[in-house]
């Protein structure tokens, strides 16, 4: 049995756990805790170690999805979770521009240290106050060649679309080597 993994990262409350939950065939193994910091109380609980989802491809291949904790103080986990990954997805909450700077910082950290394909998912695009993807690209200072994809992490089709795009990029990378 071969296992491969992809990592879902991004700032606090970007929707990483939901993203994995939406496509995982098992209930996401999530180590969530009640939030202690007042500043981060936009939701009741948060991921403190990692989320863990699974998609069985066939008898010989399993894809694992790992979600990193979003809060800055858990960034030591990123390196551990990222080792040996096929690629990664950076989730950004389109409704919270105050998190864009952190998203950019996470993206740059991952990009510099993990030479694997990636895409950026502009999550919560179904929300009324979501930023336009084109505006987010400017705010996130992203190069035109980096894919910034609209996403709704509770929609299976949307999550599938992001994953397929990342896998397509991985395929291109293999072909180009």
């Amino acid at each position, binding site marked *: 049995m*071969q296992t*491969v*993994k992809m990592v879902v990262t991004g700032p606090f409350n970007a929707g990483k756990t939901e993203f994995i939950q939406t*496509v995982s065939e098992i209930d996401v193994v999530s180590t969530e805790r009640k939030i202690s910091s007042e500043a981060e109380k936009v939701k009741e609980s948060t991921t403190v170690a990692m989320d863990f989802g699974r*998609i*069985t*491809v*066939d008898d010989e*291949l399993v*894809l694992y999805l790992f979600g990193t904790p979003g809060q*800055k103080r858990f*960034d030591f986990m990123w*390196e551990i979770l*990222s*080792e*040996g*990954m*096929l*690629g990664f997805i950076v989730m950004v909450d389109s409704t919270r521009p105050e998190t864009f*700077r*952190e998203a950019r*910082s996470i993206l*740059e*950290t991952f*990009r*510099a*240290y*993990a*030479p*694997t*394909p990636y895409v950026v998912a502009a999550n919560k695009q179904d929300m009324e106050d979501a930023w336009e993807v084109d505006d987010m690209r400017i705010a996130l*200072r992203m190069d035109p060649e980096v894919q910034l994809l609209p996403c709704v992490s509770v929609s*299976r089709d949307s999550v*599938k679309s992001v*994953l*397929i795009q990342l*896998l*397509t990029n*991985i*395929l291109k*990378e*293999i*072909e180009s*080597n």
Partner: protein
Amino acid sequence: MALKGNLRDFTITQLLNLVNLAQKTGTLVIDGSNQSARITFRKGKLAYAEISNEDNGLGAILHKAKIITAAQYNTINTRAASMSDKELGLLLVNSGYVSQQDIIVSMQNHFIDIIQRLFSWVEGVFHFNAGENSAENRIPIRMDLENIIIEGSRRLREWEQLQDELPNLDLALKFTDRPGVNLKSINMSVEEWRVVSYINPKNTIRQIAKAAKLSDLEVRKVVYGLLQAGLVELIRPVGVERKLPGLETAMAGQSKEEQKNLVNRLIGRIRSL
């Protein structure tokens, strides 16, 4: 009990606050990762500050403040090397080269500069030797700490923000591939030009800081500005072993066709969800 500890547990701001509130007299010695500093206080006020490996003498301070010329500074170094700051100050004032006010303001600015630099020290140990020390040869200065603490706290916030923006100094920089951008037409400070001159995919930001003689805070400021302007981007240094393995490790031992087959199976499975 001796006042000693680690900057990770007790910051410079907290130390100054303690000295200020407790009206302490004595010398605070801080051994940082590359340099050490000695700060003397008298009844909770800053009296003196010096940093290792730097010329902390009055001549150097006046030269840095552009009160005396380089030639005058060299003359002081050769002819008055054995004089104390107090003796040298009296000589310069009596000779009409500088005023007493020039000396006091220059020294105050020099001390403030040293303390402000200390705010960016996050590694190091400190100890406080209480009591008067023999400082009769020094020019007496007494500075309130409140403003220094406020300014330092502001810089600390700036430092923390810059650390968030640029957490890793072991990354390298490369110029962005933006046609039409001409560096020569961009107004840059001397520090920025120094950093730009060392930008190379082989040089980490930490190495650039060392070569350009900039502190972590200073190099972060410059690099942040260059990143914001879209002139450079962060990359993994060329020639350095990857900390995280890439695709080849994730699919080790497989041929290109096997790798493509694996990814196509993944795509097929996800499409079928």
